[in-house]
Protein backbone atom coordinates (compact mmCIF):
# COMPACT_ATOMS: atom_id res chain seq x y z
CA UNK A 1 0.00 0.00 0.00
CA UNK A 2 1.12 3.59 -0.66
CA UNK A 3 0.32 6.58 1.54
CA UNK A 4 -0.63 9.67 -0.38
CA UNK A 5 -1.92 13.12 0.41
CA UNK A 6 -3.83 15.09 -2.16
CA UNK A 7 -6.70 17.54 -2.42
CA UNK A 8 -10.16 16.68 -3.67
CA UNK A 9 -12.52 19.61 -4.14
CA UNK A 10 -10.33 21.81 -1.90
CA UNK A 11 -10.30 19.25 0.91
CA UNK A 12 -7.12 17.52 1.96
CA UNK A 13 -7.18 13.71 2.00
CA UNK A 14 -4.44 11.42 3.30
CA UNK A 15 -5.08 7.79 2.55
CA UNK A 16 -3.58 4.44 1.70
CA UNK A 17 -4.00 3.28 -1.87
CA UNK A 18 -2.98 0.15 -3.74
CA UNK A 19 -0.28 0.81 -6.40
CA UNK A 20 -2.75 -0.20 -9.13
CA UNK A 21 -5.76 1.76 -7.83
CA UNK A 22 -7.32 4.17 -10.31
CA UNK A 23 -8.66 7.56 -9.31
CA UNK A 24 -12.23 6.62 -10.22
CA UNK A 25 -12.11 3.89 -7.57
CA UNK A 26 -10.58 6.18 -4.95
CA UNK A 27 -13.23 8.83 -5.56
CA UNK A 28 -15.97 6.26 -4.96
CA UNK A 29 -14.21 5.37 -1.68
CA UNK A 30 -14.38 9.08 -0.81
CA UNK A 31 -18.14 9.03 -1.47
CA UNK A 32 -17.91 11.10 -4.63
CA UNK A 33 -20.50 9.62 -6.91
CA UNK A 34 -20.73 12.11 -9.78
CA UNK A 35 -17.80 10.43 -11.56
CA UNK A 36 -19.26 7.69 -13.70
CA UNK A 37 -17.62 4.63 -15.12
CA UNK A 38 -18.22 4.41 -18.84
CA UNK A 39 -15.96 2.57 -21.26
CA UNK A 40 -13.15 2.04 -18.72
CA UNK A 41 -10.64 2.44 -21.58
CA UNK A 42 -10.13 6.24 -21.46
CA UNK A 43 -12.22 6.65 -24.61
CA UNK A 44 -15.64 8.06 -23.64
CA UNK A 45 -14.96 11.05 -21.37
CA UNK A 46 -17.66 10.15 -18.86
CA UNK A 47 -15.19 9.71 -15.98
CA UNK A 48 -13.42 13.04 -16.63
CA UNK A 49 -12.13 14.92 -13.59
CA UNK A 50 -9.71 17.84 -13.36
CA UNK A 51 -6.19 17.31 -12.05
CA UNK A 52 -4.60 20.69 -11.43
CA UNK A 53 -7.38 22.13 -13.61
CA UNK A 54 -6.65 19.86 -16.59
CA UNK A 55 -9.31 17.38 -17.70
CA UNK A 56 -8.11 13.75 -17.49
CA UNK A 57 -9.87 10.36 -17.59
CA UNK A 58 -10.02 9.13 -13.98
CA UNK A 59 -10.28 5.52 -15.18
CA UNK A 60 -6.71 5.72 -16.52
CA UNK A 61 -5.10 7.82 -13.77
CA UNK A 62 -3.38 5.95 -10.96
CA UNK A 63 -4.15 7.60 -7.61
CA UNK A 64 -0.68 6.81 -6.30
CA UNK A 65 0.74 9.24 -8.86
CA UNK A 66 -1.34 12.16 -7.55
CA UNK A 67 0.54 13.11 -4.39
CA UNK A 68 0.25 16.88 -3.85
CA UNK A 69 -2.20 17.36 -6.74
CA UNK A 70 -5.60 19.06 -6.77
CA UNK A 71 -8.47 16.96 -8.03
CA UNK A 72 -11.79 18.59 -8.92
CA UNK A 73 -15.04 16.77 -9.57
CA UNK A 74 -18.37 18.32 -10.38
CA UNK A 75 -19.13 18.53 -6.63
CA UNK A 76 -16.27 21.04 -6.43
CA UNK A 77 -17.88 23.37 -8.99
CA UNK A 78 -21.41 22.83 -7.80
CA UNK A 79 -22.85 26.32 -8.43
CA UNK A 80 -21.13 26.72 -11.78
CA UNK A 81 -22.33 23.29 -12.95
CA UNK A 82 -25.85 24.23 -11.84
CA UNK A 83 -25.74 27.43 -13.88
CA UNK A 84 -24.49 25.52 -16.95
CA UNK A 85 -27.25 22.95 -16.47
CA UNK A 86 -29.85 25.76 -16.81
CA UNK A 87 -28.44 26.67 -20.23
CA UNK A 88 -28.43 22.99 -21.20
CA UNK A 89 -32.09 22.86 -20.23
CA UNK A 90 -32.94 25.97 -22.25
CA UNK A 91 -31.26 24.60 -25.37
CA UNK A 92 -32.59 21.06 -24.94
CA UNK A 93 -28.99 19.98 -24.71
CA UNK A 94 -29.36 17.12 -22.29
CA UNK A 95 -31.47 14.04 -22.16
CA UNK A 96 -30.04 11.27 -20.03
CA UNK A 97 -27.42 13.53 -18.41
CA UNK A 98 -24.81 10.78 -18.10
CA UNK A 99 -22.07 12.79 -19.83
CA UNK A 100 -22.89 16.14 -18.14
CA UNK A 101 -20.48 16.07 -15.16
CA UNK A 102 -17.50 15.41 -17.44
CA UNK A 103 -18.61 18.15 -19.85
CA UNK A 104 -19.14 20.66 -17.01
CA UNK A 105 -15.57 20.02 -15.86
CA UNK A 106 -14.17 20.46 -19.37
CA UNK A 107 -16.06 23.77 -19.65
CA UNK A 108 -14.58 24.83 -16.30
CA UNK A 109 -11.09 23.99 -17.63
CA UNK A 110 -11.83 25.90 -20.83
CA UNK A 111 -12.70 28.99 -18.79
CA UNK A 112 -9.13 29.11 -17.50
CA UNK A 113 -7.94 29.91 -21.07
CA UNK A 114 -6.61 33.47 -21.26
CA UNK A 115 -7.67 34.21 -24.86
CA UNK A 116 -11.36 34.63 -25.80
CA UNK A 117 -13.13 31.29 -26.16
CA UNK A 118 -14.34 30.51 -29.67
CA UNK A 119 -16.85 28.00 -30.96
CA UNK A 120 -13.91 25.96 -32.25
CA UNK A 121 -12.44 25.86 -28.73
CA UNK A 122 -15.75 24.57 -27.39
CA UNK A 123 -15.94 21.87 -30.07
CA UNK A 124 -12.37 20.86 -29.32
CA UNK A 125 -13.14 20.71 -25.58
CA UNK A 126 -16.15 18.48 -26.27
CA UNK A 127 -14.18 16.07 -28.42
CA UNK A 128 -13.73 12.92 -26.41
CA UNK A 129 -16.98 13.41 -24.46
CA UNK A 130 -19.25 10.90 -26.10
CA UNK A 131 -22.92 11.81 -25.94
CA UNK A 132 -25.44 9.40 -27.40
CA UNK A 133 -28.50 11.66 -26.93
CA UNK A 134 -27.82 15.17 -28.09
CA UNK A 135 -25.84 15.26 -31.31
CA UNK A 136 -23.66 18.03 -29.80
CA UNK A 137 -25.16 21.01 -31.68
CA UNK A 138 -27.42 22.01 -28.80
CA UNK A 139 -24.57 21.48 -26.32
CA UNK A 140 -22.28 23.81 -28.24
CA UNK A 141 -25.09 26.42 -28.37
CA UNK A 142 -25.77 26.06 -24.64
CA UNK A 143 -22.09 26.39 -23.72
CA UNK A 144 -21.70 29.42 -26.01
CA UNK A 145 -24.68 31.13 -24.39
CA UNK A 146 -23.48 30.25 -20.89
CA UNK A 147 -19.96 31.56 -21.54
CA UNK A 148 -21.31 34.72 -23.14
CA UNK A 149 -23.42 35.52 -20.09
CA UNK A 150 -20.49 34.54 -17.90
CA UNK A 151 -18.36 37.00 -19.96
CA UNK A 152 -15.80 34.51 -21.28
CA UNK A 153 -16.44 35.04 -25.00
Amino acid at each position, binding site marked *: MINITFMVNHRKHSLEVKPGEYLIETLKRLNIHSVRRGCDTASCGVCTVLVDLKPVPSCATLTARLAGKNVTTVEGIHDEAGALADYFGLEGADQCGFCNPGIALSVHALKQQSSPITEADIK*QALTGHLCRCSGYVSQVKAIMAYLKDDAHV
Partner: protein
Amino acid sequence: MKVNGLFKPKTLDEAYHKLTEHSKNVVMAGGAWLRLSNRTVEEAIDLSVLPLSYVKDRGDVVEIGSMTTLHEIETDDTIKSLYGGILSQAVSQIMGIGLRNVVTIGGNVVARHGFSDVITPLLTMRAKLHFYKRGTISLEAFLDIRGKTTDVLEKIIIPKRKAAGYFKKVTKTALDFAIINVSVTCDEEGFSVAVGSRPSVGQLAYEAMGLLNQAKDVDEKHIDLAAFKAADLLKFSDNHRGSQAYREELTAVYVKRGLLAVKTCFNQRGGHDD
Protein backbone atom coordinates in the same frame (compact mmCIF):
# COMPACT_ATOMS: atom_id res chain seq x y z
CA MET B 1 -3.16 -4.45 -15.96
CA LYS B 2 -2.34 -5.48 -12.43
CA VAL B 3 0.33 -3.36 -10.74
CA ASN B 4 2.11 -4.81 -7.72
CA GLY B 5 4.37 -1.84 -6.99
CA LEU B 6 5.07 1.74 -8.06
CA PHE B 7 8.67 2.92 -8.15
CA LYS B 8 9.48 6.63 -8.22
CA PRO B 9 13.00 7.03 -9.59
CA LYS B 10 15.09 10.04 -8.64
CA THR B 11 17.25 9.81 -11.75
CA LEU B 12 17.18 8.24 -15.20
CA ASP B 13 19.92 5.91 -14.01
CA GLU B 14 17.67 4.61 -11.22
CA ALA B 15 14.82 4.20 -13.71
CA TYR B 16 17.04 2.24 -16.10
CA HIS B 17 18.40 -0.06 -13.37
CA LYS B 18 14.94 -0.77 -12.03
CA LEU B 19 13.77 -1.61 -15.56
CA THR B 20 16.56 -4.09 -16.17
CA GLU B 21 16.28 -5.66 -12.69
CA HIS B 22 13.14 -7.73 -13.42
CA SER B 23 11.48 -8.78 -16.67
CA LYS B 24 8.07 -7.74 -15.30
CA ASN B 25 9.13 -4.19 -14.42
CA VAL B 26 7.91 -1.58 -16.91
CA VAL B 27 8.38 2.09 -17.55
CA MET B 28 5.10 3.96 -17.03
CA ALA B 29 4.62 7.18 -19.00
CA GLY B 30 0.98 8.33 -19.30
CA GLY B 31 -0.01 4.76 -18.44
CA ALA B 32 -3.10 4.92 -20.68
CA TRP B 33 -1.96 2.20 -23.04
CA LEU B 34 -0.45 0.00 -20.36
CA ARG B 35 -3.81 0.22 -18.58
CA LEU B 36 -5.49 -1.63 -21.44
CA SER B 37 -3.16 -4.64 -21.29
CA ASN B 38 -3.78 -7.82 -19.31
CA ARG B 39 -0.25 -8.02 -17.98
CA THR B 40 0.85 -8.16 -14.37
CA VAL B 41 3.47 -5.53 -13.70
CA GLU B 42 5.87 -6.17 -10.85
CA GLU B 43 6.95 -2.55 -10.52
CA ALA B 44 5.74 0.31 -12.66
CA ILE B 45 8.52 2.87 -12.97
CA ASP B 46 6.78 6.23 -12.73
CA LEU B 47 8.58 8.59 -15.11
CA SER B 48 6.27 11.50 -14.24
CA VAL B 49 8.51 12.36 -11.28
CA LEU B 50 11.51 13.05 -13.56
CA PRO B 51 11.95 16.37 -15.43
CA LEU B 52 11.19 14.86 -18.85
CA SER B 53 8.35 17.11 -19.86
CA TYR B 54 9.68 19.94 -22.03
CA VAL B 55 10.13 21.40 -25.49
CA LYS B 56 13.55 23.02 -25.87
CA ASP B 57 14.71 25.05 -28.83
CA ARG B 58 18.44 24.38 -29.12
CA GLY B 59 19.01 26.51 -32.22
CA ASP B 60 19.62 23.83 -34.84
CA VAL B 61 17.37 21.20 -33.26
CA VAL B 62 14.28 21.03 -31.08
CA GLU B 63 14.29 18.55 -28.21
CA ILE B 64 11.05 17.11 -26.84
CA GLY B 65 11.21 15.34 -23.48
CA SER B 66 9.69 11.88 -23.62
CA MET B 67 7.08 12.72 -20.94
CA THR B 68 5.70 15.71 -22.83
CA THR B 69 1.97 15.10 -23.26
CA LEU B 70 0.30 15.19 -26.64
CA HIS B 71 -1.73 18.23 -25.54
CA GLU B 72 1.46 20.09 -24.62
CA ILE B 73 2.83 19.24 -28.06
CA GLU B 74 -0.34 20.37 -29.78
CA THR B 75 -0.23 23.79 -28.13
CA ASP B 76 3.51 24.49 -28.23
CA ASP B 77 4.48 27.34 -30.59
CA THR B 78 7.94 25.94 -31.40
CA ILE B 79 6.42 22.65 -32.52
CA LYS B 80 3.75 24.48 -34.50
CA SER B 81 6.56 26.13 -36.45
CA LEU B 82 8.34 22.88 -37.36
CA TYR B 83 7.70 21.31 -40.77
CA GLY B 84 4.51 23.28 -41.31
CA GLY B 85 3.14 22.23 -37.91
CA ILE B 86 2.38 18.63 -38.97
CA LEU B 87 3.16 17.14 -35.56
CA SER B 88 0.78 19.55 -33.81
CA GLN B 89 -1.90 18.82 -36.41
CA ALA B 90 -1.40 15.06 -36.10
CA VAL B 91 -1.64 14.92 -32.30
CA SER B 92 -4.66 17.24 -32.21
CA GLN B 93 -6.60 14.52 -34.05
CA ILE B 94 -5.99 11.87 -31.38
CA MET B 95 -9.05 11.39 -29.17
CA GLY B 96 -10.04 14.27 -26.84
CA ILE B 97 -8.11 16.79 -24.76
CA GLY B 98 -8.62 14.67 -21.63
CA LEU B 99 -6.69 11.74 -23.07
CA ARG B 100 -4.12 14.04 -24.69
CA ASN B 101 -3.45 15.55 -21.24
CA VAL B 102 -2.32 12.10 -20.13
CA VAL B 103 -0.64 10.30 -23.02
CA THR B 104 2.94 11.12 -23.90
CA ILE B 105 5.05 11.33 -27.01
CA GLY B 106 7.53 8.87 -25.49
CA GLY B 107 4.80 6.33 -24.78
CA ASN B 108 3.48 6.64 -28.31
CA VAL B 109 6.89 6.19 -29.93
CA VAL B 110 8.13 3.33 -27.74
CA ALA B 111 4.82 1.45 -28.05
CA ARG B 112 5.34 1.45 -31.86
CA HIS B 113 1.58 1.24 -32.45
CA GLY B 114 0.77 0.37 -36.05
CA PHE B 115 -1.85 3.13 -35.99
CA SER B 116 0.47 5.75 -34.52
CA ASP B 117 -0.30 9.25 -35.79
CA VAL B 118 2.89 10.45 -34.13
CA ILE B 119 5.47 8.14 -35.68
CA THR B 120 4.39 8.84 -39.27
CA PRO B 121 5.03 12.63 -39.16
CA LEU B 122 8.15 12.17 -37.01
CA LEU B 123 9.64 9.92 -39.70
CA THR B 124 9.30 12.68 -42.27
CA MET B 125 10.71 15.23 -39.81
CA ARG B 126 13.94 13.19 -39.64
CA ALA B 127 13.49 12.61 -35.90
CA LYS B 128 16.10 10.95 -33.74
CA LEU B 129 15.54 9.27 -30.39
CA HIS B 130 17.84 9.60 -27.42
CA PHE B 131 17.78 6.66 -25.01
CA TYR B 132 19.45 6.73 -21.62
CA LYS B 133 21.81 3.75 -22.27
CA ARG B 134 21.85 3.28 -26.03
CA GLY B 135 22.33 6.95 -26.87
CA THR B 136 20.94 8.53 -30.03
CA ILE B 137 19.49 6.51 -32.90
CA SER B 138 17.24 7.42 -35.80
CA LEU B 139 13.53 6.72 -35.46
CA GLU B 140 13.73 4.42 -38.50
CA ALA B 141 16.49 2.35 -36.86
CA PHE B 142 14.41 2.10 -33.67
CA LEU B 143 11.38 0.86 -35.63
CA ASP B 144 13.51 -1.94 -37.10
CA ILE B 145 14.43 -3.29 -33.65
CA ARG B 146 12.22 -6.23 -32.69
CA GLY B 147 11.11 -7.10 -29.15
CA LYS B 148 10.68 -5.26 -25.88
CA THR B 149 12.52 -1.96 -25.31
CA THR B 150 14.77 -2.36 -22.25
CA ASP B 151 15.97 1.21 -22.14
CA VAL B 152 14.46 4.54 -21.14
CA LEU B 153 13.65 7.02 -23.87
CA GLU B 154 14.80 10.43 -22.70
CA LYS B 155 13.98 12.73 -25.59
CA ILE B 156 13.09 13.09 -29.25
CA ILE B 157 15.28 15.33 -31.39
CA ILE B 158 13.97 17.10 -34.48
CA PRO B 159 16.17 19.19 -36.78
CA LYS B 160 15.03 22.79 -37.28
CA ARG B 161 14.84 23.41 -40.98
CA LYS B 162 13.12 25.58 -43.48
CA ALA B 163 10.51 23.05 -44.49
CA ALA B 164 6.95 22.46 -45.58
CA GLY B 165 4.76 19.62 -44.40
CA TYR B 166 1.47 17.84 -44.99
CA PHE B 167 -0.33 15.37 -42.75
CA LYS B 168 -3.54 13.44 -43.36
CA LYS B 169 -5.29 10.95 -41.10
CA VAL B 170 -8.08 9.00 -42.77
CA THR B 171 -10.65 7.56 -40.35
CA LYS B 172 -14.13 6.11 -40.40
CA THR B 173 -15.22 8.23 -37.44
CA ALA B 174 -13.58 11.27 -35.86
CA LEU B 175 -12.04 9.50 -32.87
CA ASP B 176 -11.16 6.18 -34.46
CA PHE B 177 -7.69 4.83 -35.25
CA ALA B 178 -6.54 5.69 -38.75
CA ILE B 179 -7.31 3.54 -41.78
CA ILE B 180 -4.09 5.09 -43.03
CA ASN B 181 -2.12 8.19 -42.15
CA VAL B 182 0.16 9.98 -44.58
CA SER B 183 2.89 12.52 -43.98
CA VAL B 184 4.85 14.37 -46.66
CA THR B 185 7.56 16.95 -46.05
CA CYS B 186 10.09 18.85 -48.06
CA ASP B 187 13.26 20.40 -46.62
CA GLU B 188 16.80 21.13 -47.84
CA GLU B 189 17.49 17.37 -48.19
CA GLY B 190 14.43 16.90 -50.37
CA PHE B 191 11.09 15.14 -50.04
CA SER B 192 10.14 12.65 -47.34
CA VAL B 193 7.03 10.50 -47.60
CA ALA B 194 5.76 8.18 -44.87
CA VAL B 195 2.61 6.10 -44.56
CA GLY B 196 1.34 4.55 -41.32
CA SER B 197 -1.52 2.41 -40.09
CA ARG B 198 -1.00 0.19 -43.14
CA PRO B 199 -2.11 -1.31 -40.61
CA SER B 200 1.47 -1.83 -39.51
CA VAL B 201 3.58 1.03 -38.23
CA GLY B 202 4.63 4.07 -40.28
CA GLN B 203 7.35 3.58 -42.85
CA LEU B 204 9.23 5.84 -45.22
CA ALA B 205 8.50 5.30 -48.92
CA TYR B 206 12.12 5.20 -50.08
CA GLU B 207 11.47 4.46 -53.76
CA ALA B 208 9.03 7.34 -54.08
CA MET B 209 11.40 9.67 -52.27
CA GLY B 210 14.38 8.55 -54.40
CA LEU B 211 12.48 9.16 -57.60
CA LEU B 212 11.59 12.71 -56.59
CA ASN B 213 14.87 13.64 -54.97
CA GLN B 214 16.91 12.58 -58.01
CA ALA B 215 14.72 14.44 -60.47
CA LYS B 216 15.91 17.72 -61.94
CA ASP B 217 12.39 19.09 -62.20
CA VAL B 218 9.50 17.83 -60.15
CA ASP B 219 6.34 18.08 -62.20
CA GLU B 220 2.97 16.43 -61.94
CA LYS B 221 4.18 13.33 -63.81
CA HIS B 222 6.87 12.71 -61.20
CA ILE B 223 4.34 13.28 -58.48
CA ASP B 224 1.88 10.79 -59.99
CA LEU B 225 4.62 8.20 -60.36
CA ALA B 226 5.93 8.75 -56.83
CA ALA B 227 2.41 8.44 -55.39
CA PHE B 228 1.91 5.25 -57.38
CA LYS B 229 5.25 3.85 -56.15
CA ALA B 230 4.40 4.60 -52.52
CA ALA B 231 1.09 2.75 -52.90
CA ASP B 232 2.64 -0.11 -54.87
CA LEU B 233 5.85 -0.76 -52.97
CA LEU B 234 4.95 -0.20 -49.33
CA LYS B 235 3.37 -3.25 -47.71
CA PHE B 236 -0.32 -2.95 -46.87
CA SER B 237 -2.76 -5.49 -45.50
CA ASP B 238 -6.38 -5.92 -44.43
CA ASN B 239 -8.01 -5.38 -41.06
CA HIS B 240 -11.55 -4.50 -39.97
CA ARG B 241 -10.93 -0.80 -40.71
CA GLY B 242 -9.99 -1.26 -44.34
CA SER B 243 -8.74 -3.68 -46.97
CA GLN B 244 -5.28 -3.73 -48.49
CA ALA B 245 -6.68 -2.50 -51.81
CA TYR B 246 -8.51 0.40 -50.15
CA ARG B 247 -5.38 1.42 -48.26
CA GLU B 248 -3.37 1.38 -51.51
CA GLU B 249 -5.93 3.59 -53.22
CA LEU B 250 -5.98 6.04 -50.30
CA THR B 251 -2.20 6.15 -50.21
CA ALA B 252 -1.87 7.06 -53.87
CA VAL B 253 -4.42 9.87 -53.49
CA TYR B 254 -3.05 11.40 -50.29
CA VAL B 255 0.62 11.08 -51.15
CA LYS B 256 -0.13 12.97 -54.36
CA ARG B 257 -2.03 15.68 -52.47
CA GLY B 258 0.79 15.93 -49.98
CA LEU B 259 3.44 16.27 -52.66
CA LEU B 260 1.44 18.95 -54.43
CA ALA B 261 1.05 20.81 -51.13
CA VAL B 262 4.78 20.89 -50.35
CA LYS B 263 6.16 21.09 -53.92
CA THR B 264 6.73 24.85 -53.85
CA CYS B 265 9.18 24.42 -51.00
CA PHE B 266 11.21 21.95 -53.15
CA ASN B 267 11.25 24.35 -56.05
CA GLN B 268 12.40 27.19 -53.80
CA ARG B 269 15.24 25.27 -52.15
CA GLY B 270 17.76 24.96 -55.00
CA GLY B 271 16.13 25.88 -58.24
CA HIS B 272 15.28 22.43 -59.60
CA ASP B 273 12.16 23.97 -61.04
CA ASP B 274 11.81 27.54 -62.23
